[in-house]
């Protein structure tokens, strides 16, 4: 018989679980456990990544949560199926949203309302029945048992947890006796909070941080037993209650949730009669194209057909319509609103007036934005006048229904500074040590701190990271690297569901009073829910104010679309560094670059935006590009076939779109494959994966007559560039705005 752990906490229990999901799964696999549940406190924040990773490990995942119920009691709930998952999401949402600024609490009515598809275990020591039995309040315990049995019927189990201790009779024996008297089924769990026994210290440390006390002040019984025990260990603990062990398998066999990940769930767009989403999108696209271009050239027609066809094939028509509708609504009310990022690569986006940059004029590549091999929902980020962003958000809520819209959450996690401060405080470290250790470190994790203590200039100057008496302290800090601390609102991210969001995503209050998802943007994407970034951009407000001031004071109405992009006086100002107040070009680094680049055309602004960033400057891209730009060094190409891709930047790779073009022109990849190649190089990958990409790239290049040596050199350039490459479409959008 194989024991199944049905009550397991991860760091997504927020300052209670002490082992990462990877670590828990690794241990479960080492123990040859076929199934594992995840039951974090009141949240499903870790559920999607747990579900995916467990499947990869060959372990069947069970999704659940330990929910706080009336009376500050705990109840362990497990999803049997999709309806159970949906009910758990709704129950958690109800528990969180019913009262603001209060800890979540599910009412008995809510438990009854959202019971279908869920299995309930009576919970840990804080469960209602264990608590009452522990305090010998048998009559109340019987009443509570009647309620839970009535709600969950055969899917209710008394949870037995047996931590060996000095006490001769464990609580679980009394609880088992109670279950027998009440004819209730029992199940053994270990209320797991860490993978291995020694990690109990991390749990205690996190608990102290959570309660803002010193570790030495932690109250209540302490234990080292909440680790992922083997079947043999659990068998030993429950030898006298074999049915409690057998029921773990029985419960696992009842839980068969299959999440539909990757399936887009776009909101239904209300279409005019007789139209499909595709026909209506086409109609609006061609109307927009005629407004922009007058008669359509074959190049424009072909591009529009290709883009519309791709959008249709991927099933994203209603998404484009939804974005168009929001932008259209905003613009009709004089609210400045336009796309940024890779969406600007699309001609459809441009002719729908979602973006202000013409991708034909600026030679932008649609495939960087979307292509047939990329099935993730497209991402159109909108910049909106800061003062009026809430109006746009309110419109979205009104249009799709408040129940169907929420803000996306960001999971705030530990980096070195936070870890040093919190761990230091819990361990009563002297304040001066904490301050010295935090001094000058930004955006580093505690593990990086130790790794780079001898190599990074900002760390080398302090001896503190090398002091032997502090080694254990820094190790503890590194242990909680990237552990989640709390949820907050993602900047601008709005979710729009194709129905009630809480059927699919648990929702809660943010500290600022917004309703946020319990999942972050990556998990939202996996669930296929539309996320729209509607971001406040102060520049939009400045432009709006400036235009109205000019009109009011000088009686001149300015149409931004008619401002020439090649005004010599404007470029003279840029060259003189007179750019204070100019969007994106006012920083000292940009002004310094203007003095070296001496911009005289719009393309120079795009180059400047792409160049003045830490990556390209550290890699001396400016020193390669600028002499070529001023004719002081010849423009050379590693291979003649790079001329098309890199001609506009004089043989230097500056934009992400150029990676696609190089892979297309030299290795013969389709643009879609080339984007996959770019993304693979950009994201975290193993040395082995990188080696495979290198081999494949070189083989493809050789087939096209490029020598191995040249192909190798070009691959190295692409790989180095991938770390800091800039999206040309974004640079163009911001260049136009500047």
């Amino acid at each position: 018989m194989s024991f199944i752990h049905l009550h397991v906490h991860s760091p997504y229990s927020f300052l209670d679980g002490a082992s990462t999901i990877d670590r828990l799964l690794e241990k479960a696999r080492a123990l040859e456990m076929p199934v594992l549940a995840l039951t974090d406190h009141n949240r499903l924040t870790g559920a999607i990544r747990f579900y995916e990773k467990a499947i990869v490990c060959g372990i069947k995942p069970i999704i659940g949560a330990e929910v706080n119920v009336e009376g500050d009691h705990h109840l362990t709930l497990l999803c049997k199926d999709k309806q159970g998952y949906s009910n758990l999401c709704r129950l958690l949402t109800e528990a969180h949203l019913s009262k603001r600024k209060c800890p979540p609490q599910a009412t008995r009515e809510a438990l009854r309302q959202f019971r279908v598809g869920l299995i309930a275990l009576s919970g840990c020591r804080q469960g209602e029945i264990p608590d009452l039995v522990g305090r010998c309040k048998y009559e109340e315990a019987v009443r509570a048992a009647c309620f839970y049995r009535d709600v969950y019927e055969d899917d209710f189990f008394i949870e037995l947890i047996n931590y060996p201790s000095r006490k001769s009779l464990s609580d679980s024996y009394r609880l088992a006796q109670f279950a027998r008297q009440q004819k209730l089924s029992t199940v053994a769990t270990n209320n797991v909070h860490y993978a291995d026994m020694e990690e109990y210290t991390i749990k205690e440390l996190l608990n102290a941080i959570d309660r803002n006390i010193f570790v030495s002040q932690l109250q209540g019984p302490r234990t080292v037993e909440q680790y992922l025990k083997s079947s043999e260990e659990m068998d030993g603990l429950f030898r006298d209650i074999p049915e409690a062990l057998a029921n773990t398998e029985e419960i696992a066999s009842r839980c068969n949730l299959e999440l539909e990940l990757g399936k887009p769930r776009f909101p239904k767009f209300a279409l005019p009669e007789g139209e499909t989403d595709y026909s209506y999108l086409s109609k609006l696209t061609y109307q927009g194209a005629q407004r922009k271009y007058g008669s359509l050239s074959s190049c424009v027609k072909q591009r529009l057909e290709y883009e519309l066809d791709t959008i249709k094939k991927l099933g994203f028509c209603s998404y484009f319509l939804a974005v168009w509708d929001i932008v259209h609504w905003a613009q009709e009310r004089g609210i400045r609103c336009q796309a940024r990022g890779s969406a600007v690569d699309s001609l459809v986006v441009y002719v729908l007036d979602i973006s202000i940059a013409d991708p034909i004029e600026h030679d932008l590549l649609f495939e960087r934005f979307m292509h047939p091999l990329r099935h993730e929902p497209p991402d159109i980020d909108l910049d909106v006048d800061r003062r009026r962003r809430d109006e746009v958000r309110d419109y979205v809520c009104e249009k799709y229904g408040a129940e169907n819209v929420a803000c996306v959450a960001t999971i705030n996690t530990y980096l070195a500074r936070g870890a040093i401060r919190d761990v230091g405080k819990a361990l009563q470290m002297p304040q001066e040590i904490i301050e010295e250790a935090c001094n000058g470190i930004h955006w580093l994790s505690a593990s990086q701190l130790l790794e780079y203590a001898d190599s990074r200039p900002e760390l080398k100057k302090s001896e503190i990271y090398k002091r032997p008496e502090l080694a254990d302290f820094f190790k503890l800090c590194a242990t909680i690297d990237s552990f989640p601390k709390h949820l907050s609102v993602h900047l601008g991210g709005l979710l729009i569901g194709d129905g009630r969001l809480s059927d699919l995503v648990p929702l809660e209050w943010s500290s600022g009073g917004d309703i946020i998802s319990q999942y972050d943007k990556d998990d939202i994407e996996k669930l296929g829910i539309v996320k729209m970034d509607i971001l406040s951009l102060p520049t939009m407000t400045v432009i709006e104010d400036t235009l109205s001031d000019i009109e009011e004071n000088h009686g001149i109405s300015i149409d931004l679309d008619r401002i020439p992009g090649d005004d010599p006086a404007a470029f003279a100002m840029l060259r003189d560094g007179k750019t204070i107040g100019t969007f994106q070009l006012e920083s000292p680094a940009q002004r310094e670059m203007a003095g070296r680049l001496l911009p005289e055309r719009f393309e120079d602004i795009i180059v400047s935006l792409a160049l003045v960033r830490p990556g390209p400057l550290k890699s001396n891209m400016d020193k390669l590009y600028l002499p070529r730009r001023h004719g002081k060094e010849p423009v050379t190409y590693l291979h003649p076939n790079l001329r098309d891709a890199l001609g506009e930047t004089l043989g230097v790779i500056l934009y992400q779109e150029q990676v696609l073009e190089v892979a297309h022109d030299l290795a013969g990849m389709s643009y879609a494959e080339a984007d996959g190649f770019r993304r693979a190089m950009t994201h975290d990958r193993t040395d082995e994966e990188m080696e495979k990409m290198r081999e494949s790239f070189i083989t493809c290049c050789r087939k096209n007559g490029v020598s191995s040596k040249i192909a190798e050199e070009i691959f190295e350039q692409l790989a180095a560039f991938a770390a800091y490459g800039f999206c040309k479409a974004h640079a163009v959008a911001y260049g136009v705005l500047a």
Partner: protein
Amino acid sequence: MSKLIGEPVKAHADNDSMLTAFIWRRRLYRVVEVHSWWWEPSEWWHGKAVRFFIRVNAQNSSEGTYELYRLGEQWFLSRVLD
């Protein structure tokens, strides 16, 4: 009732590391029954390690109940129970 002792003892274990006998104050106690065992958390923030406890019935001139713990390789008699 129990009497706290806290003295080091010399322990003998079988092949499964289970305690079979211990010598306390120069007298040999043979373990006749193991009642229970458990681990106890420590003040880890002061560098202390978890302790493994075992409660046994052991026989010298008469049989009694004893609680011992192991810290690293060293065993200690924690308490004698009446």
